[in-house]
């Protein structure tokens, strides 16, 4: 009796182990089945992310990627497990699976319920499940391959979004003017900063608005104002220098009225310079204010010459800045150079350029050609509308020559209601074969 019980316990343990193995296998199958789609989707998403990052110049070595890939894979597997839990089978269900596969007449379930004895063990008991290795391995391989491919594929890097945007040329032009004026000690540091602040205000706009109408208009207005101020300054400096020069070197030859006029011009120039919108360098103003044009003997001839040269140079600088402030924009007379270049081109206009890196300068064919180009505009061409979907009412579709197609086969009058096959009275008509439609009707009727 005891031996029998021991044997039953051993059989119970063995069968339950077998059932647990089956349960683990089926549950692992469900787990993988739920995680596989996530892996494939994550692989594609990872591919896209890595590809985009690499195209934007982010350096992604595989040593940096694989821990993320492994971590992401682990998270997906956990998510898959959570999703698959509802489908997990119990050990009792695994027992049923085993007994139905081994055709044990539900002996395992009955024994587990205590209603019967455990059956003898079966060598190589098979639960009937086989792994679909392609299904299992495919998504893992796809996940790994997607990430590897994203790391391996050569990508063209996109242009750096932070690269400096081209700004309106007037701004840089004005900045260079102010730098130059300050460098030549014509205007004060504060004046330069003030002007630069105005430019900076324009620059603080969003880059996409830099070339808006309002922005360009404001920049041009500022530039024209600055240009006028510099020109006025140059003019005043020249006037003062010329007056001093005349008073210094030609005083003996001048009439009293001329001297008076020169003195008046000098004073007016000084007053205009003080009134200029640009704040003149204090040292320059002091030097000019310290001169008494009526009594220039207070300064030596060398000092006067030096002062005049300085004024002349400054006036020249100011004039140089304002000379041709054209579209090439650095104030050094590129407009003139361009005009000169265009003039040469006009003279050389024998035909269009030949292309390539040595192309041009050349002229458009219509500019200087002696003979009129023939574009064939006087030819008459047939136009046919092949796309009739766009034809409008009244459009001519086609014209065709031909005769009317008349059916010339003669047909005489026919008697209507003629019956080809007449049945005799009492005859029964049989239909031995039915068409599919007739069959369908019959099926519907007799259903």
């Amino acid at each position: 009796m005891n031996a029998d019980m021991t044997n039953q316990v051993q059989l119970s343990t063995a069968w339950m182990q077998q059932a647990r193995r089956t349960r683990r296998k089926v549950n692992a199958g469900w787990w993988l089945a739920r995680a596989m789609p996530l892996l494939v989707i994550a692989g594609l998403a990872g591919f896209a992310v890595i590809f985009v990052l690499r195209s934007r110049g982010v350096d992604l070595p595989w040593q940096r990627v694989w821990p993320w890939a492994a971590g992401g894979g682990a998270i997906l597997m956990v998510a898959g497990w959570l999703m698959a839990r509802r489908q997990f089978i119990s050990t009792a269900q695994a027992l049923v699976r085993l007994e139905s596969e081994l055709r044990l007449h539900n002996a395992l379930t009955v024994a587990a319920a205590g209603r019967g004895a455990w059956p003898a063990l079966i060598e190589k008991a098979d639960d009937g499940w086989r792994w679909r290795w392609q299904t299992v391995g495919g998504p893992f391989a796809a996940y790994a391959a997607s990430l590897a491919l994203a790391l391996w594929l050569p990508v063209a890097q996109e242009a750096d979004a932070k690269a400096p945007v081209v700004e309106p040329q007037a701004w840089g032009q004005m900045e260079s003017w102010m730098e130059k004026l300050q460098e030549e000690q014509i205007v004060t540091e504060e004046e330069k900063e003030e002007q630069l602040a105005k430019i900076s205000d324009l620059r603080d706009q969003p880059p996409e608005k830099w070339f808006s109408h309002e922005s360009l208009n404001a920049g041009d207005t500022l530039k024209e104002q600055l240009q006028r101020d510099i020109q006025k300054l140059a003019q005043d400096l020249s006037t003062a220098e010329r007056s001093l020069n005349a008073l210094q070197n030609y005083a003996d030859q001048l009439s009293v009225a001329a001297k008076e006029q020169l003195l008046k011009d000098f004073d007016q120039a000084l007053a205009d310079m003080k009134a200029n919108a640009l704040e003149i360098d204090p040292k320059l103003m002091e030097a000019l204010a310290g001169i008494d044009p009526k009594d220039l003997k207070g300064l030596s001839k060398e000092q006067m010459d030096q002062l005049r040269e300085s004024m002349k140079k400054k006036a020249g600088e100011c004039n140089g800045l304002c000379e041709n402030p054209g579209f090439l924009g650095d104030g050094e007379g590129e407009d003139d150079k361009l005009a000169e270049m265009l003039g040469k081109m006009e003279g050389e206009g024998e035909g269009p350029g030949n292309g390539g890196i040595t192309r041009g300068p050349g002229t458009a064919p219509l500019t200087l050609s002696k003979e009129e180009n023939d574009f064939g505009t006087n030819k008459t061409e047939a136009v046919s509308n092949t796309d009739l979907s766009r034809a409008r009412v009244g459009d001519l579709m086609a014209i065709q020559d031909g005769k009317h197609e008349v059916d010339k086969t003669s047909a005489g009058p026919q008697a209507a209601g003629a019956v080809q096959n007449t049945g005799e009275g009492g005859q029964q008509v049989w239909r031995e074969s039915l068409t599919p439609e007739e069959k369908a009707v019959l099926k519907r009727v007799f259903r």
Partner: protein
Amino acid sequence: MTDAYASDSEIQTASQHVEALRRTLNEVLFGQEELINLVLCGVIARGHVLLEGLPGLGKTELVKGLSKALNLTTRRVQFTPDLLPGDITGNPVLQEVDGKREFVFQPGPIFTNLLLADEINRASPKTQSALLEAMQERRVTVLGQTHTLPEPFFVLATQNPIELEGTYPLPEAQVDRFLFKLEVLRNSAETLARIVTHRELGVEPQVSSMLTREAFAQMQATARRIYLPEIVADYIARVVDATHPGQSAAAAGVRFGASPRAALSLAAASKARALMQGRPNASFEDVQALALPVLNHRILLDYTARMDGKTSAGIVRAILAEVPVQNLATPGTLKEAAR
């Protein structure tokens, strides 16, 4: 106090009795082991059996042999179109009792243990329906008086499938009361040779009684106490449910599926089969083996399916192939190994 489930000794005893019965009946009817097993299964499960087959295949011999082996009283009624209900159930007869004339009920041939209803489809529907109450409730009501039939009571009916003229197909309600509808197939040449060697025309085979009536009743009681695991009951329910239109792919073309009585019949028959095989429990295999005889006559096909050549038996086989023993889906990462 009786245990809720059959004990090993009871099962052992019953199994021995079944084996003896089987041997005896195999001596009566040669080459019909499967038919004999199903008939035995039907009577152990307290069910009525409808045998369908050509004349001369031994249907009547089988029933007579069974009644002798089980030591049961047997009546045979040849159903004909002019048979009246009273001819089966019995009639009240006016008799003089103690100087008074009163109706006295004269029991008909249905008052027996084993009723052999030969060619049942020849009787009029009215007469066939007289069997309804008897088959289901094992009692007969005549002139307002209910008479209980003897225990056990079985109807083993036969019908001839080829002669359709002058026959009345059994109403669905009555067909549903038969536990099994069994097809009696023709014998093979070897079997015919045995029959010719061992039998003579007009001489009935000798059958000795193998079981007392009480022992048979005990066997039936044991069959009812066979353990039906919950998973097997669930399987029976899903198989029967799948016979209804729209409940399974296999049921396409079915007009009416099997009734709850079919599920009960399948469970009872499965238990009886388990007892016959000496097992303490019914199993998936029992259900699969008995689904065809239990469900075949309970599934009605529509006209379209019949035109397409479908049969009830084919649909039952398709349902068994479609419905899994456990209501569990298979993960896509695993496949079922082909056996």
